[in-house]
């Protein structure tokens, strides 16, 4: 089985802070990580490889330093890594990004394409389904479990009410939930070897699309403005004993007609 996993390097948004004086984002010192849902997707691929044997290729679109997550993927057990990079790809929204990645994937053979459900820097959950559409593949999103039986994938999809079981034959695109696939650690030998393994660097020549479909020019949306949220005026804070605390809460609830 040939599996391609789409991964992305993202800033760890859980440690980003706002400068309380200027109201701007403090990006310095924020570590870059492999996006958690993508890492779950890679784990899904590696579990299939462990059970059935598979060739796992990871691909990322990003700046040259995104090489770091490809090395991490090697250390986890990936077999091949591709860095898709170029100025032409910059400023892309999800539509342009998905066109670029889909066009690059056309250079590869695959039975299964896996993407993370969403990336923590954008939280859109769009690129996976959009790639599937561009490639004419069926999709299942929010995947929390997977079995492979008689040439078909039996997929567990999480929903608000519980889950669904779906059946689909490859080639197919699945988007993975980190919560469904607890990522393995890099193994020590793998870490050492990861730095000697080759990463294929692909540029715009591997993307057979007109330049107008890439980057900012190919985007279906544009950012009109961005801003940090004004901090809501803080209310009263009291350091009191438990008895007084209860009193304060009850009078607040009465004041606001909650009780």
């Amino acid at each position: 089985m040939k599996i391609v996993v789409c991964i992305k390097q993202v800033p760890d948004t859980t440690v980003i802070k706002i400068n309380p004086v200027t109201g701007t984002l403090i990006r310095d010192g924020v570590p870059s990580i492999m996006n958690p849902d993508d890492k779950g997707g890679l784990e899904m691929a590696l579990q299939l490889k462990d059970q059935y044997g598979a060739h796992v290729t990871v691909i990322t679109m990003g700046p040259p330093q995104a090489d770091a997550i490809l090395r991490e993927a090697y250390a986890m057990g990936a077999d091949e890594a591709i860095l898709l990079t170029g100025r032409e790809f910059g400023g892309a929204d999800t539509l342009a990004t998905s066109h670029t990645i889909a066009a690059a994937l056309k250079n590869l053979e695959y039975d299964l394409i896996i993407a993370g459900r969403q990336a923590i820097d954008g939280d859109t959950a769009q690129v996976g389904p959009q790639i599937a559409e561009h490639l004419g593949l069926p999709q299942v999103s929010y995947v929390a479990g997977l079995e492979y039986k008689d040439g078909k994938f039996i997929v567990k999809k999480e929903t608000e009410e519980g889950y669904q079981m779906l059946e689909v034959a490859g080639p197919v695109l699945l988007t993975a939930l980190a919560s469904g696939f607890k990522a393995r650690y890099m193994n020590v030998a793998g870490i050492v070897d990861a730095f000697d393994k080759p990463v294929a660097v692909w540029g715009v020549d591997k993307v057979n699309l007109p330049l107008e479909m890439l980057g900012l020019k190919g985007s279906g949306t544009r950012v009109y403005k961005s801003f940090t949220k004004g901090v809501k005026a803080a209310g009263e804070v009291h350091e009191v004993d438990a008895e007084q605390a209860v009193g304060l809460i009850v009078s607040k609830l009465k004041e606001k007609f909650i009780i």
Partner: protein
Amino acid sequence: MNNKNVYVFAEQREGVIQPVALELIGKARDLADVLGDKVVAIFAGHNIADQANELIAYGADDVIVVDAPELKDYVTEQYTQAVYQVITAMNPDIVLFGATTIGRDLAPRLSARLEKGLTADCTKLEISDGSDPKLEARKLMMTRPAFGGNLMATIVAAKDGVQMATVRPGVMQKKDKDATRTGNIIPFTATFDSSKFAVKLLETVKAEKGLIDITEAKVLVSGGRGVGNKENFEKLAALAEVVGGEVSSSRAMVDAGIMDHDRQVGQTGKTVRPNLYLACGISGAIQHLAGMEESDLIIAINKDKFAPIFQVADLGIVGDANKIVPMLTERLAKEIKK
């Protein structure tokens, strides 16, 4: 191409109109009134036509009913084909989807098929008035959080034609129901290419939860790391019961396996805006605040007086929630009896 009117994909599950559909119709009503246009609901499913009036009562002018056995349960390709045909036939100006596991699966697929942009998980939608030379009038301004809620971005469509957005459940407010409202119910016949139906739904399983969705609760008693364990969450549940609310939690408690994911408030959980949000032992990471700061009244109890939750709280108590909550429950039980 002349794109016109504000459309809402009116999501139903097993024939039940989802609350987010009514919330989106409420918002679409505001947008359409600014534009002087109509609100049109796209209502797809099987044997659902009798409920179209409900969508009108909440603010739709027209309801396009796509009724077909292929649409009985949500499957990506079937629904994409149906809604794609409606959009290409009607040329909407705007289409809104709920940011649910259905809307977030369907809308990007449509965006790629239509070659149009899509803005995810919007928290605010407005129509531009033309006062800024950088943005023409009558464009949809879609504001959403980015970088885990650290930054807000207002996005606009970069191509001509339909403008599309998903909106998280619980963010917009539905209008009051008006059963006397009238509108048009328009049947739409979709043709299906079943050769593309590659995914087969085997079964739908509902988890035994039996709880009210936290986005619909009027009162939420929410616990975080400071609550710490299942026993202490029982105390929150007792308080919630007395005040007719539900228990929710921060991500930490979900990751720790103490609470289910469907109880999680925040960027990767749900957005809530209850009348009362009582935050117990929640420090208030920005991802959490993004999911609850629109609540009408926020009361926070936390041991750490520097906890960021106090910056959004109307009333903050520096103290131990596990001690205060049982006392509060007892007191409120008496107050409410009176």
